[in-house]
C-alpha cells in the first residue's frame, strides 16, 4: 500500500473562487507535492489579440479581469503608445491615475470583504461591500460604467471630469476614508480577529521576493516595493502615492 494519498481539489470546489485544479500529494498531514492546472478559464486572449485591430484589442483586454479592468487596458494603451511614439496629454495621464486609484480602492475593499468572509467575520464582509458601492457609484459617475470603464483609448482617455463630478468624488472619498480608518482600527484592536489571523500562513520576506510576490502581498511580508513609485507610469512620476501594508500573519 502506498504511503502517499492523492487529494484532488477543484476545478469545482466550495473553497475556490474560480475554477482551478490542485492535485495534492499527502504524506500523513504533510503536503509533499502539488500538481496544478490553471487553464480552465483560459480564453486564449493573446491569440485572439493577434487576429484583431489595436482598438478592438483594447476592449477585449479590458475584459481580462472583472476586478482590475482599467489596469489591463492602461498597460495595453501604454505599450501601443510606446510603439507608435504617441504623446498623451498630461490631463489624460492624470485621469488614468484617478480611475486607476478608484479601481484600486474598490479592489482592496473587495478583498478586505472576502478576507472577512473567509475567517467567518461576515459582518466585516457586509459593511465593507456596502461601502464599496460608494466607489462603484463614483466610477459609474465618472466613466459611465461600474466594471469595464472604457476610459482608456490609444493616445488618451475617452471622458473628461467635470467640476460637479469632482465635488461628488471628493465627498464620496471622504466617507470612504473615515470608514476605512475605522476598519483599520477594528482589525488592529479586536481580540477575536487577531486571534484568528495572527501567525496564520506567514510568508517570510525572502520567500516573498524569490517567489516574485508583488503588491500588498509583498508589502505585507516587509518588501518595500510599489510599482507606482519604482517604475512609474501615467502621472505617478509627479505624485508620491503613500505605500502602506500590514500583515497580521507576520506577527507570530
Amino acid at each position, binding site marked *: 500500500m502506498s504511503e502517499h494519498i492523492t487529494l484532488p481539489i477543484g476545478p469545482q470546489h466550495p473553497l475556490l473562487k474560480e475554477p482551478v485544479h490542485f492535485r495534492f500529494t499527502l504524506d500523513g498531514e504533510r503536503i509533499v507535492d502539488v500538481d*496544478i492546472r*490553471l*487553464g480552465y478559464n483560459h480564453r486564449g486572449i493573446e*491569440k485572439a489579440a493577434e487576429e484583431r485591430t489595436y482598438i478592438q484589442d483594447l476592449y477585449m483586454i479590458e475584459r481580462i479581469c472583472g476586478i482590475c479592468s482599467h489596469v489591463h487596458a492602461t498597460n495595453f494603451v501604454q505599450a501601443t503608445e510606446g510603439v507608435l511614439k504617441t504623446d498623451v496629454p498630461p490631463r489624460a495621464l492624470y485621469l488614468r491615475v484617478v480611475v486607476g486609484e478608484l479601481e484600486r480602492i474598490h479592489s482592496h475593499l473587495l478583498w478586505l470583504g472576502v478576507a472577512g468572509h473567509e475567517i467567518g467575520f461576515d459582518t466585516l464582509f457586509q459593511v465593507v461591500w456596502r461601502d464599496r458601492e460608494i466607489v462603484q457609484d463614483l466610477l459609474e459617475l465618472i466613466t459611465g460604467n461600474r466594471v469595464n470603464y472604457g476610459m482608456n483609448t490609444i493616445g488618451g482617455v475617452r471622458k473628461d471630469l467635470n467640476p460637479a463630478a469632482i465635488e461628488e468624488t471628493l465627498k464620496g472619498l471622504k466617507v470612504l476614508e473615515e470608514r476605512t480608518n475605522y476598519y483599520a482600527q477594528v482589525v488592529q484592536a479586536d481580540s477575536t480577529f487577531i486571534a484568528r489571523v495572527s501567525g496564520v500562513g506567514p510568508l517570510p520576506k525572502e520567500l516573498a*521576493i*524569490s517567489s*516574485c*510576490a508583488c503588491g500588498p502581498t509583498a508589502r505585507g511580508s516587509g518588501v518595500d516595493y510599489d510599482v507606482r513609485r519604482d*517604475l512609474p507610469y501615467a502621472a505617478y512620476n509627479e505624485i508620491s502615492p503613500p505605500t502602506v501594508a500590514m500583515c497580521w500573519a507576520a506577527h507570530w
Partner: protein
Amino acid sequence: MLPQADMNWIKIPAETIRQYTSDLITKGEFRHLSTITGYQDGETICLLYHFLVPQGGLNVRVCVPLANPVLPSISPVLIGAILYEREIQDLLGVRFEGIVDARRVILPDHFPQDVFPLRKDFKKEDLP
C-alpha cells in the same frame, strides 16, 4: 509618462540566462521579476524577462531557434519564475532545461503533446 521611459532593454545569449539571473541575485540587484513574455518571430522564439533592478525596469531578451527551442531554466535560482516558464512551455513549446517542475499548468492532459497554441502556425480551427 510611459513606463518604457525608465526601462533598459538588453539582449544576451540564451544559454547565459540562468547565470545572468543568478548574478543579479548575488549582486543584490534583483528586486522583482514581473513575468516572462514569449513570442514567435519568424523562425525564432524570443523570451523577454521583465526584471526590476534598483535603476528601474530591465528587460532582458533571449532568442532560441524555433526548430530547437531549448534554454536553461532560471527556476533553480529563482523559484518564482516557474509558473512563467511552465506557461511558455505549454503555449509556445519552449523546453527549459533543469526546470524544477515541468508538468503542464495551462493545457489539459488530453491536449496533443506536439501542438502549441501561441505559435503562429496554430489556428483556432485546429483546436482538437
